[in-house]
C-alpha cells in the first residue's frame, strides 16, 4: 500500500495556481490509474520516481528525467511531497519527503524497528526502480540488452575480484610451509654454493696470475727504464757538449766571416766606383772599345776578385787600357803635350802673383797682362789639354783599381775562397740555423730523459709496493720466464703485458662481483627457507600448480567478458555491426544474446495468438517462436511490441525489490496488457515486487487494483 501527498505551486503568468493530487492519496500495491490528460496521473509517477533518486538513474528514459528535473528545478514552480510504502507481509516501510523550498530529498527504509537512510547508491543496491514510458517499443527491444550489459559488467568485476583473490592465495601458498618449495630452496642453495666455490677458486687463480704478471712487468720495466734513463742522460750530456762546441765554432766563424765580408765589400765598392768613373772617361778617349766596355760591365766583379786569377778579366783590361792610353799620348806628339803643359803650369804659377805691378823683363808686361797673353795662347791647346787631363785621370783610376784589386786579392780572396771551399754559403743566417738545430735536439733529448726518469720513478714505486727491490728484479723476471705456461708472454711488449694485466684485473673484478651476487643469493634463499620452515602449511598446499592454472583461466575469462563481450554488446546496441564480417565468436555471442532476450519476453502476442518466444534476433530484426514462426519486428503491432518490451523490463530479476512505474500504456489492448499484469501479480506474490503502478489514458478518471481476467474471458 502507498500513501502520498504533494503540492505544486505554479506561476502561470496571469495567475498563481496550486495543484494537489486529483486521485485518492492511498493506493494498493498493484494499481492502475486511468484518466484524461492533465489529470495528474503522470505527475504522481514523476514524483514517486523523484523520491527514488530517479534523477540520477541513467537507465530512465531522458524524456522522463527531463520532466522530473522540471518539477524540482524550474523557476516558475515549487514542489513539496511525501509518500510512504508499507509492505504488510514483510513489515518493510519506505518513507520519502521533500520540502517545497529545497531540492533535497530524504528517503529511508524501516525494517524490524531499524531505520536506514537510502542514498542513491544504497537504494540501487537494494531496489530496482523500473520507470518507463514505452515510447517506440519495437526499437527499444534492443535496449533490453542494457540489462545484459549491466550483468556482464557486474560479473566481469567479480571475476576481477576473483583474480585478485587467486593471486593472494598463490602468494600465501608461496609464503606458507611448502615442503616442495623448501626442497627447491635447498637445491638452489646447493647449486649456488657450488657456483660460489668455483668462482672463489677462479678468483684465487686470477689473483695469482695477476700478481705474477704485475711483478714481471714492473721488474722488467724497472731494469729497462733504468737503462733507458742512463742512455737518455748520456745523450743529453753529449748534445749539451755538441751545442756548446757548435755555438763557439760557429760564433767565431760568423765573426770572422762577417768582418772579412764587410771589408771585402768596401773594397769591392771602391773598385766598382772607380770602374764606373774610368769607363766614363774611356768612352770618350777610346770610342772603338765599346765591346770591351760592355763585357766589363757584364762581368761578375765579386767572383773575379774572389777567384783572383793572375790574368783575370780585370787585370787584362787594366793592362789593355793602360797601353791604349799610352798609344794615344805617343800618337798626339810629346811636344804639343809639353807646350800645353807649359802654358798650363805658367798660368798656374803666375796666378799666385797677379796683383804685382812689376813688369816682366823681356816682354815689358805686368803679371796680370802676361797671364792674359798666356791664357790666350793656352786656348789654342785647350782640347789637347782636356784630353791630356782625361788620360791622366784614366791612368790614375787604372792605378787605383789595380792597387785595390791587388789588395783584395791578397787580403780577402784567400779567406773567402776558404769558406766557399767548405761548402758554406757566405751567409751568417746559415750559421744561426746550425745552432738552432743543436738546441732543438738537446731540448728533445731532455724531454725524453725526463720521461724516462718519471717512468723509472713509477717503476720503482710499483716494485716497492710489491716488495721487489732493484736487486731482486732479475730474480723476479727469471721466476716468471721459468714457468712453462707463461713462456708465450715472454715475447710480449710492455704495452701487450699491460693489456694482459688490464684483462686479468677486469676478470678478477667480474669474478668478485659474481661472488658477491652469489653470496647475496645464497643468504637470501637461506633466509626465505628459514622463514618458510617457521610457517604453517597452507590448506591448498598440494594444489599450487593447479591454482596457478586457475589464475590463467580466470584472467582469460576476465579479459573476455570485460573486453570482447562488452565490445560485442556495444556494437549491437549502437547498431554499428557489419553483418557480413562477423567472426565465429561474435556469431556465438549474438546467438546467445537472442536466446537471452527470448527468455526475457517469454510470451508474445501476435495477431490473435500467443507464442512462446525462442529468441529475438536483433541483427536481423526477427522474433523466432518455439513453433518455428519467424516474425519481423516491424510486423508486430504497436501494442504487442509494447507489451513485449514491458515484459522484458519486468523480467530483470535479481535479489532486489522491484518498484515498477509504467506510464502511457494506451496503445495496448487488454489482451496485450494481461501478460504484463500476470507478471506483476507473479512478482508481487513472490515478494519481489514492492509497488506496481500502471498509468493509462482514458476519458474518465478511474483508479483501482490491477485485476487479472479469468481464463477464457
Amino acid at each position: 500500500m502507498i500513501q502520498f501527498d504533494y503540492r505544486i505551486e505554479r506561476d502561470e503568468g496571469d495567475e498563481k495556481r496550486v495543484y494537489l493530487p486529483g486521485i485518492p492519496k492511498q493506493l494498493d500495491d498493484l494499481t492502475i490509474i486511468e484518466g484524461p490528460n492533465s489529470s495528474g496521473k503522470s505527475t504522481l509517477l514523476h514524483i514517486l520516481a523523484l523520491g527514488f533518486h530517479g534523477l540520477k538513474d541513467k537507465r530512465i528514459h531522458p524524456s522522463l528525467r527531463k520532466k522530473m528535473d522540471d518539477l524540482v528545478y524550474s523557476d516558475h514552480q515549487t514542489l513539496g511531497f511525501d509518500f510512504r510504502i508499507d509492505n504488510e507481509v514483510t513489515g518493510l516501510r519506505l518513507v520519502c519527503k521533500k520540502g517545497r523550498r529545497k531540492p533535497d530529498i530524504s528517503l529511508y527504509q524501516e525494517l524490524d524497528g531499524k531505520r536506514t537512510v537510502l542514498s542513491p547508491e544504497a537504494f540501487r543496491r537494494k531496489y530496482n526502480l523500473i520507470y518507463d514510458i514505452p515510447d517506440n517499443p519495437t526499437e527499444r527491444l534492443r535496449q533490453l540488452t542494457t540489462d545484459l550489459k549491466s550483468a556482464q559488467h557486474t560479473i566481469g568485476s567479480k571475476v576481477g575480484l576473483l583474480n585478485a583473490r587467486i593471486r593472494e592465495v598463490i602468494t600465501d601458498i608461496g609464503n606458507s610451509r611448502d615442503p616442495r618449495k623448501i626442497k627447491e630452496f635447498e637445491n638452489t642453495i646447493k647449486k649456488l654454493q657450488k657456483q660460489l666455490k668455483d668462482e672463489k677458486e677462479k678468483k684465487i687463480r686470477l689473483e695469482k696470475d695477476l700478481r705474477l704478471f704485475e711483478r714481471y712487468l714492473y721488474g722488467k720495466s724497472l731494469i729497462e727504464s733504468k737503462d733507458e734513463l742512463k742512455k737518455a742522460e748520456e745523450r743529453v750530456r753529449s748534445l749539451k757538449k755538441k751545442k756548446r762546441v757548435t755555438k763557439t765554432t760557429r760564433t767565431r766563424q760568423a765573426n770572422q766571416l762577417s768582418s772579412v765580408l764587410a771589408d771585402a765589400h768596401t773594397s769591392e765598392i771602391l773598385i766598382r766606383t772607380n770602374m764606373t768613373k774610368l769607363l766614363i772617361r774611356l768612352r770618350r778617349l777610346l770610342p772603338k772599345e765599346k765591346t770591351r766596355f760592355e763585357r766589363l760591365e757584364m762581368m761578375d766583379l765579386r767572383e773575379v776578385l774572389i777567384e783572383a786569377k793572375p790574368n783575370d778579366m780585370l787585370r787584362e783590361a787594366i793592362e789593355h787600357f793602360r797601353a791604349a792610353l799610352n798609344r794615344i799620348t805617343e800618337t798626339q806628339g810629346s811636344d804639343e803635350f809639353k807646350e800645353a803643359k807649359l802654358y798650363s803650369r805658367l798660368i798656374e804659377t803666375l796666378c799666385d802673383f797677379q796683383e804685382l805691378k812689376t813688369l816682366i823683363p823681356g816682354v815689358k808686361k805686368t803679371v796680370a797682362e802676361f797671364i792674359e797673353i798666356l791664357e790666350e795662347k793656352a786656348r789654342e791647346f785647350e782640347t789637347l789639354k782636356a784630353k791630356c787631363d782625361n788620360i791622366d785621370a784614366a791612368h790614375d783610376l787604372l792605378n787605383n783599381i789595380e792597387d785595390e784589386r791587388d789588395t783584395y786579392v791578397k787580403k780577402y780572396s784567400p779567406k773567402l775562397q776558404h769558406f766557399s771551399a767548405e761548402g758554406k754559403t757566405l751567409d751568417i743566417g746559415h750559421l744561426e740555423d746550425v745552432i738552432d738545430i743543436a738546441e732543438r735536439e738537446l731540448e728533445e733529448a731532455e724531454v725524453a730523459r725526463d720521461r724516462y726518469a718519471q717512468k723509472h720513478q713509477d717503476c720503482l714505486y710499483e716494485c716497492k709496493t710489491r716488495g721487489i727491490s732493484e736487486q731482486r728484479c732479475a730474480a723476479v723476471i727469471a721466476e716468471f720466464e721459468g714457468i712453462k705456461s707463461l713462456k708465450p708472454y715472454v715475447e710480449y711488449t710492455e704495452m701487450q703485458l699491460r693489456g694482459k694485466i688490464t684483462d686479468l684485473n677486469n676478470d678478477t673484478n667480474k669474478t668478485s662481483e659474481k661472488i658477491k651476487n652469489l653470496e647475496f643469493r645464497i643468504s637470501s634463499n637461506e633466509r626465505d627457507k628459514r622463514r618458510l620452515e617457521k610457517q604453517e602449511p597452507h590448506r591448498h598446499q598440494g594444489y599450487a600448480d593447479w591454482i596457478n592454472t586457475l589464475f590463467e583461466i580466470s584472467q582469460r575469462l576476465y579479459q573476455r567478458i570485460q573486453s570482447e563481450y562488452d565490445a560485442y554488446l556495444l556494437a549491437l546496441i549502437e547498431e554499428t555491426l557489419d553483418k557480413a564480417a562477423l567472426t565465429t565468436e561474435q556469431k556465438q555471442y549474438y546467438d546467445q544474446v537472442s536466446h537471452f532476450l527470448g527468455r526475457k519476453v517469454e510470451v508474445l502476442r501476435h495477431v490473435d495468438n500467443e507464442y512462446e518466444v525462442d529468441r529475438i534476433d536483433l541483427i536481423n530484426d526477427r522474433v523466432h517462436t518455439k513453433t518455428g514462426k519467424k516474425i519481423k519486428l516491424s510486423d508486430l503491432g504497436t501494442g504487442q511490441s509494447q507489451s513485449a518490451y514491458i515484459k522484458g523490463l519486468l523480467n530483470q530479476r535479481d535479489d532486489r525489490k522491484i518498484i515498477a512505474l509504467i506510464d502511457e500504456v494506451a496503445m495496448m489492448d487488454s489482451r496485450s496488457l494481461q501478460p504484463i499484469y500476470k507478471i506483476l501479480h507473479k512478482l508481487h506474490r513472490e515478494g519481489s515486487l514492492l509497488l506496481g503502478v500502471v498509468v493509462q489514458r482514458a476519458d474518465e478518471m478511474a483508479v483501482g487494483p490491477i485485476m487479472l481476467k479469468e481464463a477464457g474471458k
Partner: protein
Amino acid sequence: MQDEAFKEFFQNLLSDKTEQQIIDLILQGLESEEIVDRLVKSKRSKAK
C-alpha cells in the same frame, strides 16, 4: 544475482568447464574466497 537467464547465457557461451563453474559460483552470490575454496574442493574430489 540468481537469474537463470544470465546463467544460461554464460554457460552456453563458455566451453571451458572451469570458466562455467566460476560463472555459476559468481551467480550463486559467493565471495571470491569461497569460490576459490569450492573450486579447489571440486578439483580435490575429482582427483580422488
